[in-house]
């Protein structure tokens, strides 16, 4: 019976002897060798996801100009960062849009530039225009400050995302007779398309569905650099119904993550625009799952055929929060390009990049194989049902 500790696995990583495979590769390995043999052979399974994650942003310390200033309003390329914290600190959120953006006054709005795009520009090393205002105090007399800056000029920049890497998500469809413009993309009338946004078998939280190795301090790939799980995310909802394999059947766990923005890359932090909805940020996240025992191996061997998600109508059920589900489909069906609902065949499209997820799992695998990336044991694990957290919102599906 396989039993491994974090320390033993890290020892193998340091020695360059750890066997690391991606969450895709482990599926075929298990088919060839069975779970017991694969569990003793494989040390780490890497996962990945690269999709729009709206609850993302960065804490910035903009540095003190002379004379000093208590910035009460901060704009970066015209996008406001929340400055209701200390003197020159601000939080730039991914979905913030410039005050000059007409938003949906001319429907559907284009939202070509927002907080997510500023973050992408910063990590790309581009110049960004800082425009700050203050009411002035005795200790902080300066009232305005304008400067063109780059990420290098910012003393401190930390990505802090409060809801990322959703464990499962609704498939969005439209039962009405008009086009809908949503955060799940454009939904054509009368079940014209079905959009989904999860990497399925590669997605981090599908590979450790009961959070046995995930929690505060788990070291991860974040935006092309190294980050950490810093808490469970907002709307973390571990009590969602689950299949026999432990995998939630509707949106469930989420992560809060943190990492130094300065070591991230514009390849994996990408500003995006949703017609008629708003601006956001695509975030690349990869999480290594240590194979502590055969049970962990079984979890990581989950395939798209065994992961199911609810189909939700975004013309009525979702906006009204009725919790009605039209049916359940597997990620294998979704990825085939077509699902069937009743008699109707509906073409599908992802919003989360599977190719990107695969690449991230591959990069993380390489980091670990090279001995550059060790695994961390969480200080506490993400809460499961009955541990005091159970989101009662109306994300969709059956959460009500």
């Amino acid at each position, binding site marked *: 019976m396989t039993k491994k500790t974090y320390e033993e696995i890290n020892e193998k990583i340091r020695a360059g002897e750890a066997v690391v495979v991606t969450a895709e590769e482990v599926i075929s390995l298990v088919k060839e060798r069975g779970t017991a043999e694969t569990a003793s052979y494989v040390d780490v399974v890497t996962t990945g996801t690269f999709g729009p994650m709206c609850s993302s942003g960065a804490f910035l310390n903009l540095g003190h100009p002379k004379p000093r200033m208590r910035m009460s309003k901060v704009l970066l390329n015209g996008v406001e960062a929340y400055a209701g914290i200390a003197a020159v600190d601000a939080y730039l959120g991914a979905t913030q849009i410039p005050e000059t953006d007409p938003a949906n006054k001319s429907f559907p709005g284009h939202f070509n530039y927002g907080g997510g795009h500023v973050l992408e520009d910063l990590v790309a090393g581009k110049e960004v225009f800082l425009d700050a205002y203050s009411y002035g105090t005795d200790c902080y007399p300066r009232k305005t400050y304008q400067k063109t800056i780059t990420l290098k000029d910012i003393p401190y920049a930390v990505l802090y995302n409060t809801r990322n890497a959703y464990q499962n998500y609704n498939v969005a469809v439209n039962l009405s007779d008009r086009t809908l413009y949503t955060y799940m993309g454009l939904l054509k009338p009368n079940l014209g398309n079905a959009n989904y946004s999860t990497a399925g078998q590669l997605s981090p939280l599908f590979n450790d569905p009961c959070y046995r190795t995930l929690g505060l301090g788990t070291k991860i790939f974040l935006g092309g650099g190294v980050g950490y799980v810093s808490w469970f995310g907002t709307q973390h909802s571990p009590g969602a119904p689950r299949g026999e394999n432990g995998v939630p059947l509707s949106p469930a766990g989420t992560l809060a993550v943190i990492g130094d923005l300065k070591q991230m890359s514009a390849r994996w932090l990408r500003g*995006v*625009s949703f*017609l008629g909805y708003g601006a956001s940020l*695509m975030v690349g996240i990869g999480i290594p799952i240590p194979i502590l025992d055969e049970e962990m191996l079984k979890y990581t061997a989950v395939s798209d055929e065994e992961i199911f998600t609810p189909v939700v109508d975004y013309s009525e059920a979702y906006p009204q929060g009725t919790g009605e589900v039209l049916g359940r489909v597997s990620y294998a069906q979704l990825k085939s390009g077509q699902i069937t609902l009743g008699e109707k065949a509906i073409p599908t*499209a*992802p919003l989360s990049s*599977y*190719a*990107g997820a695969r690449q991230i799992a591959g990069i993380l695998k390489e980091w670990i194989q090279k001995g550059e990336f060790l695994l961390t044991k969480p200080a506490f694990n993400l809460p499961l049902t009955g541990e005091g957290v159970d989101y009662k919102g109306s994300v969709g599906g059956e959460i009500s």
Partner: protein
Amino acid sequence: MREKMVLYFPATVVEQPLTYSLIKDYNLMINILKANINPKMEGRIVAEISGEKKDFHAGLEFLQSRGVRVFPLEQEIVWVEERCTHCGACTVICPAGALVLERPEMIVRFKGDKCIICEHCITACPSRAMEVRY
């Protein structure tokens, strides 16, 4: 032969029924996919033109002799690959099958010859990887 073309009409000829001549005098089939006249009175037609090779070339020569500029369609909509995240959101929006997800790789491909320049992809692409160039 059959090809999708973009025809630019200068303001001086925009009111002349040149398409009619293509049909009547050159025996060409014209399937107009898109047409518009800008505020400067210049016209633009995106059309699939088909017929005998000899007629096709003679017809285009006729248009050019009247000042109409003729371009193949592919150059109009450009897929900026480095901006593409390969998410696939465009693939259910494109009505012409020009934007497709290649399976099992799950990589987006743009097949310019199938594009009908409807421009739906321009705003449907979250990372704005599709551009119009004219």
